[in-house]
């Protein structure tokens, strides 16, 4: 399987995703938007899944 990016970059991106999610949830709570744990996890799973899909989709297809 060929990735669109290197596994190392993918790992760092996934980590960044998690981190941004945790901090964003706090930031949103300050402006009065509170995400439940469930919603946060769902957003996280969706974001990471999207990232992984993007990475494994062969370059050039559908573009």
């Amino acid at each position, binding site marked *: 399987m060929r990735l669109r990016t*290197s596994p190392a970059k993918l790992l760092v991106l996934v980590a960044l995703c998690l981190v941004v999610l945790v901090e964003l949830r*706090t930031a949103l709570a300050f402006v009065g938007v509170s995400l439940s744990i469930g919603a946060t996890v769902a957003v996280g799973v969706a974001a990471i899944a999207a990232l992984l899909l993007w990475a494994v989709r062969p370059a050039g297809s559908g573009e």
Partner: protein
Amino acid sequence: MPNGATFADAYPTQARHIRAAFWASFLSLGVGAFFGLIQALHRTDILRVIESQTYYTVLTAHGVFLVISFTIFFLVGVFQWAVTDSLERPPVDMRFTWGWYGLMSLGASLTAFAILAGFTDSIDVRANVLFTFYAPLQAHPLFYVGLVVFVVGTWLAGADWFRSWLAWKGDNPGERIPLPTFMVLTTMIMWYISSIGVAVAILAFILPWSLELTGSLNPTLTRTLFWYFGHPVVYFWLLPAYLLWYILLPKLAGGRLFSDPLARVVFILFVLLSTPVGIHHQYLDPGISEGFKFIAMTNTMFLLLPSLLTAFTIIASMEHGARQRGGEGYFNWLTALPWRDPAFTGMALAGMVFAFGGFTGIVNAGMNINYLVHNTLWVPGHIHTQVGTAAALTFMAGAYWLVPQLTGNRLVGRGLALVQVVLWFVGIVFMTNSMYRGGLVGIPRRTAEPQYEGFEYEVAAGSVGELNAQLAIGGTILFVSAMLFLALMVLTAFNGGTEPIDDGSIPPALSGPEDSPAVLDNLKLWVAIAAVLVVIAYSFPLASIVSRGGLFGPDIGPIPVAIDAASTVARTALEAVSAVVR
């Protein structure tokens, strides 16, 4: 250093000495991380394997092992490497070099013994005073003796590096001090100026009092002397990380340091400004006037400057490196960075966390906002983003590059090492995010059971249970990451018959020292100015504290931490009753 040779080839004896310092550091990290895990699970009431009163023995060990032993042993190793490598000469007398290492190890062992003896009743030694050892809480004298011996060891280490530099200067008259050595010398100047405070606190007041030579002391005075040292010590942890960011990171990114002159200015600013700020840890102390607190606040804000300048140089150097590697565009160059390299990625992530933590530091420094967060869990949140990541993660990442140079062995498990630094990054964000939020709703730090009977915390979003879970998950990830790091280090040490990937050479800066005025290298001048600033900032507060509370304080009996909780509670109850009756 001959081209292509590792440091271990060029300086085998020095490499052995630096490895010894690193092993002392890594051992402390392992034990400290284990205690961290116990704390994370205990205070959240998720798993309690110890009695709550033992928690404070654990916490004392966590603080001392990590911020005294782990950080300082690592940094003397890095400094020894930086001085030897950049002056291209070994220490003048290796026996002296081993001597200060021996003193530091002896001191650390004595203090560690005094703390760990607290786990058993069979030895009558206790030091459950946390790493700040505020009197009149009293530890066993060995605890203080060990700290003094350790600090004296670091002073001699500094003397060793100055000696190397003077010898080098004799052979290279009129030359600019090589940047790595310049950083080491300025950092040590700051350390000399600041550690005098803790030395006086211990030698003049706390140690004689713990040996019952003096009857009492002035708690505000010893506390103020501690914080005179307590803020600069955070820069003592951080500046070796800065050194690695300035010296190593640009090279790892594939480029060169942007500006040598600016790096020198940054380190001089730290010499001048790190000490006259310690009172910002005492914004809530009675007996210190608002004026002194205000001065500490303004100085602290100016101390942001060298860090902001560092952020610029680091990012500029990384961008330069990325473009050398073929990176393009406004942001696209980021993808051209060597993310596969754990040393690079670890430092880059540490830098990101540091920038974020810097903003939480501004909240602490804001003297009136500080009242909301002082001594809440917010503070360990800040501690772990700064020394616990900016310094610790940079050290671990740096070790992935340095240890192969020091052993001549190839790093084992490069991919796992990448996973390790990424795990630390994720773990720290989980743990500190929970700590920051917990602090804002008033959950205290340094508390075995922050669950009280009389009230509930009012968490704006989520619940205390959720905060606890997040803290425990973060702490566990961190612990796993620390263990993974240690395992890779041990395996690398035994990975004989291999060679490091990198040749160990450090490229010169884009803008070299010749672009800066020579006055930057006039160390005597900076020492003099720093001393004047310290005298201005501290003479009046100290005089006022002594005139209020006396040099040796009002007559307060010692409060040994050895008294067990039950008898103390009983005594308290008695006192309370007698107070009501009378």
